[in-house]
């Protein structure tokens, strides 16, 4: 079983949880945890019915820049950007910007004749977080919108995906460079992203199977190293910044997995030009899934697949959220086959997104050795399923 796919399904769970929380919020006086939980049956019913959608059931040829755009026949899709940025005055920032698309109804049931410009078949959810590392300030925002009335949407030529004022666009029809912009309450980013490596097709040439059954898979590619330039804004005060960013793109139609409760995901960019991605999936009983795996992308873009056995992960510290839940916070990650020994430390601990469904996603810095030589770097880590309310199925 592919780890990535499980991440997809769990994110779908997250998304649906959030959808329910956001969409059903207004049916309810106060969306307490219990109420969100009680509505999950709805989320599962929605996530569970995949009839009528396209499925990721065979390898495909990826064509860029078209594939940066939407694949509306699939139930879910996301555009995912993270990165570490340095300002000219020495300040460090981390950012996360994600837009999700979810189809409300299968393509074959979509109504052809609708006169209202508000008619919609897709919803968009966006998360935007900015970490002000020196000041240990974390800003996180969430948005939802329908794909209608020019409020949200996605297109491929020229590439653009947007949710109200948040957007990722290509400045011409070649896809890259991409401009990523988000702003809310005086906090914002406006970055130009240029790839330093070719796209990495995950799994089997971009088809990432989830289980034995056909179609239980996703299409998935990444840009593991993007040079980023632009501005970061805090308190309406823009700062020029530059740094490295990472993009993930995935679309699929699949049912929710039952036995996973969350995952720990690492996207690390090393000073020697290599990028490392590694996931560890946690089962309901709290153990790490044996199928967890990753990929090491060399400076020239060549990739090496990593298995669970290739990686030793040791938790060094923890952090308890003031809102509940205890997260691991600091790791030693050793890959003997690659002579890599890395210590991964959050840039600061409180980088939890208090959105519809809470999770931790934050900037990290890396110190360590490769072949006995010192290596450093920065990256992003995502931790889900630790907050009490996460997907309603958190371990006790």
């Amino acid at each position, binding site marked *: 079983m592919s780890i990535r796919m499980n991440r997809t399904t769990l994110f779908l769970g997250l998304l649906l949880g959030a959808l329910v929380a*956001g969409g059903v919020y*207004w*049916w309810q006086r106060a969306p307490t945890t219990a109420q969100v939980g009680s509505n999950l049956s709805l989320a599962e019913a929605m996530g569970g019915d995949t009839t009528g959608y396209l499925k990721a059931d065979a390898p495909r040829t990826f064509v860029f820049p078209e594939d940066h755009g939407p694949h509306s026949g699939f139930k879910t899709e996301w555009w995912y950007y993270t990165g570490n940025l340095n300002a000219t005055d020495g300040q460090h920032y981390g950012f996360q910007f994600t837009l999700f698309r979810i189809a409300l109804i299968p393509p074959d049931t979509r109504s052809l004749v609708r006169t*209202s410009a*508000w008619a919609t078949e897709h*919803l968009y959810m966006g998360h935007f977080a900015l970490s002000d590392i020196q000041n240990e300030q974390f800003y996180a925002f969430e948005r939802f919108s*329908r794909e209608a009335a020019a409020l949200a949407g996605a297109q491929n030529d020229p590439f653009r995906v947007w949710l109200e004022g948040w957007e990722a666009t290509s400045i011409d029809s070649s896809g890259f460079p991409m401009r990523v912009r988000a702003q809310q309450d005086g906090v914002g980013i406006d970055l130009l992203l240029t790839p330093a490596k070719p796209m990495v097709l995950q799994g089997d040439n971009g088809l990432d199977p989830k289980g034995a059954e056909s179609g239980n898979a996703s299409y998935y590619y990444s840009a593991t190293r993007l040079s980023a330039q632009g501005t970061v804004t805090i308190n309406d005060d823009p700062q020029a910044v530059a740094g490295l960013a990472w993009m993930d793109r995935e679309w699929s139609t699949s049912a929710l997995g039952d036995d996973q409760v969350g995952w720990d995901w690492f996207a690390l960019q090393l000073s020697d030009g290599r990028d490392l991605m590694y996931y560890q999936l946690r089962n309901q009983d709290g153990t790490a899934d044996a199928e967890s795996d990753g990929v090491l992308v060399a400076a020239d873009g060549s990739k090496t697949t990593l298995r669970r056995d290739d990686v030793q992960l040791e938790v060094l510290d923890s952090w308890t959220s003031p809102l509940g839940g205890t997260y691991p916070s600091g790791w030693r990650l050793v890959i003997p086959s690659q002579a890599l020994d890395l210590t991964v430390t959050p840039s600061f601990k409180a980088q939890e997104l208090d959105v519809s469904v809470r999770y931790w996603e934050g900037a990290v810095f890396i110190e360590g050795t490769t072949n006995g030589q010192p290596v450093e770097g920065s990256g992003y880590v995502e931790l889900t399923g630790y907050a009490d309310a996460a997907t309603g199925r958190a371990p006790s």
Partner: protein
Amino acid sequence: MSNLLRRSSWRYAWQHPWLMGLSVLGVALGVAMVVSIDLANTSAEKAFEQSAARVTGKATHQVVGASEELDEAVYTMLRVQEGVRDIAPVVEGYASVPGAGRTLHVLGVDAFAEAPFRSYVGGPGSNVELSAFMATPNTGVVAQPTVQALNKALGDTLTLRIGGKNTVLRIVGELVPDDDRSAQVIDNLLIVDIATAQELFGITGHLSRIDLIIPDSNDGELQLQRIEAALPDGAEVTRSTARTRTVEQMTRAFNLNLSALSLLALVVGMFLIYNTMTFSVVQRRPLLGRLRALGVTRREIFRQILGEAVVVALIGTVLGLAMGIVLGNVLVRLVTQTINDLYYVLTVRELSISAFTLLKGIALGLGATLLATIPPAREATRAPASTVLQRSQQESNLRELLPRLVIGGLGLALFGGILLLVPSRSIVLSYAALLCIIIAAALLTPAAVWGLAKLLRPLLGKTFGVLGRMAARGVVTTLSRTAVAVAALMIAIAATVGVGVMVDSFRETVAVWLGYTLRADVYVQAPSLVFRRVDTTLDPAVVERLINTEGIAGAYSVRSVSLSTPDGRTNLGVIDQGPNARRAFRFKAGDADALWRDFRTDDVVLISEPYSYRTGLDYGDTVEIPTDEGPHAFRIGGVFYDYASDQGVVLISRPIYEQYFTDRSLSGLALYAAEGQDVEALVDRLRNQAGTEQELIIRSNRALREASLEVFDRTFTVTIVLRLLAVLVAFVGVVSALMALQLERARELAVLRANGLTPRQVWRYVTLQTGTMGFIAGLLSVPLGLALASVLIYVINKRSFGWTLQFEIAPEVLIQAMVLALVAALLAGLYPSYKMAKANPALALREE
């Protein structure tokens, strides 16, 4: 001693169950009227507030367009370009459910924008199929009790009728209210996706409004300025409460008038109580005299009489509250019907019984009773400490008082007249004047009764002989009570005359107006939920077909839109009329020649009389109207008589309207038949031509006139019900007063019987006497009634609505008044004469 007093009171009541019963009934009816009207008014008001609250939610401001709709691009602009976060688009309207007799309040929302605004309270049982709700056309969410009341279940379909078109909607969610309050808030609410709402109401591209939450702070003020600066011409930000207030003001005059009429019933009730209590005191004067001789103090007697009144008041009030609630259930329906006909769509499922209303009823019941009892109680304390007493003393007292009463009455009438002349728009002041006039009439009644009875004596003597003269003299000798009874009857009947003449005058005025204003032969419109506010539009294809129907010689169109102006909403009527228009208007002010010359080419409008009254604008002024191009000033070319809307209307010609507004829809069509066409056959042909895609109301001139008058009559049903109730109160009053009077005569009649008067003659004597009183009351009620009608027509109606009405006196109303008075009086005499005729005179004599 106080025990003795209590027992004597109890015994008296026990021996006069009829009297006590009627007193209690008098209090009860008065209280019931006030309480029921108040409950009906407050229920309607509460229902409106709830429906306003459920659509306003936490919104502090809203962006509205110049007309009822707003370009939807404004929303995207504010949310995306301006980055306004607490903002939600709303499409709002009403839909009827054919066959279920229900009107649903349809609210079209964007689920993701709603969270900060409206929390539709649903417990954990609430179940919403979100994907279907948002992505499938014609789906909606309804409160579970409403779903059940419609005999539906989750997943079922519901047929909605909007503007004559039927749409089938699937119920994809139920809101389960978690308490009664939330159940009321969501009752009859249909929540749909905003796309579905636009399609249901045929307003794609437009929103009803945009809701905003702007904090009450400097930041909020800045945000507001930023939003205002970004808005295109024609759109503006208003406070959310402004809309609610505007709508509430529409019905204020209506509600106030109903309350005043109900208070009138209480006034009549007070006379009744005064009468009963006076009677009970007078009858007990010998007893009270003996009690005084036994050492009972004046204070004790005063307290005792008041105590009796309290008991009567308490029983009457409790009974009145119960009756008021029952009656309120009926009245609330009538009040709601009127509001629906005239003002806005309102559903009141049940009477909401407010503690405040009940307290008011209790206070009025007890207060009025005690107030009416104070004079007789004081009278009781004057009973001399002796066993001998004649009533003649009191009678001579009253006769001595007559000149003073007359002077007081005339003075009060003069004061009332002066109050009416005060240049004010206060309705309360008008009713105060009305009350002065009524009380003045009551003060003048004893003198009038005295005089009229003297005048009638020879006449009665000639017609009925000795018995007739005796009857007339009896009225005068017991003036202290006959005058009160006559006054009560007169006031009640005068109230019915006043209201009757007012309604007749109004109706006649409207009928005349309809006659000259409806000039075309056939009228077409789509069904609208509010009779006097056509908010639906005609399908252009259908219009095309209708105009080209064979036998149509000409047509003009009408469009009616509601504009948001600083002083509330203004109805703008757009007419596209040829030379015929001229004859359809009569001007209160203005130059008709100049007006019709410029109407289609200049920036000139007409305003209706109520609009002129409401806004203070007149011929020659300019009126600023918000248009799609921003506010624009139009010259007022005339003020015309119009009885279609108490809110008033501004009329503009089609060519000028199209210069300033983008809207091209039509609300109605007026068609002229060609020479020699049979209009009814033409209507049938038009109905065939109209097709089935939109249900249309196609009516001949006559049918529309009838329908209009039908609505008119319906809106006055409440008034007529109140009028009937006032008659009932009066009837009870006069029955109890006259019955008391005759029963008190038991001894006198026994003497007459002992002297050889036959039972038949007793019967005639009693009947003649009550008949005389009824006749006098009827006679007196006519001038008072006409005076009341004048105040209602020329002052209260004018001040409430600004209408000029023609004073019309239908002879039936006056005849009715006389008949009513006589019948009441004669019926009242039945029981006493029956009892007296049957009584053994010896026994009756001994009882004293």
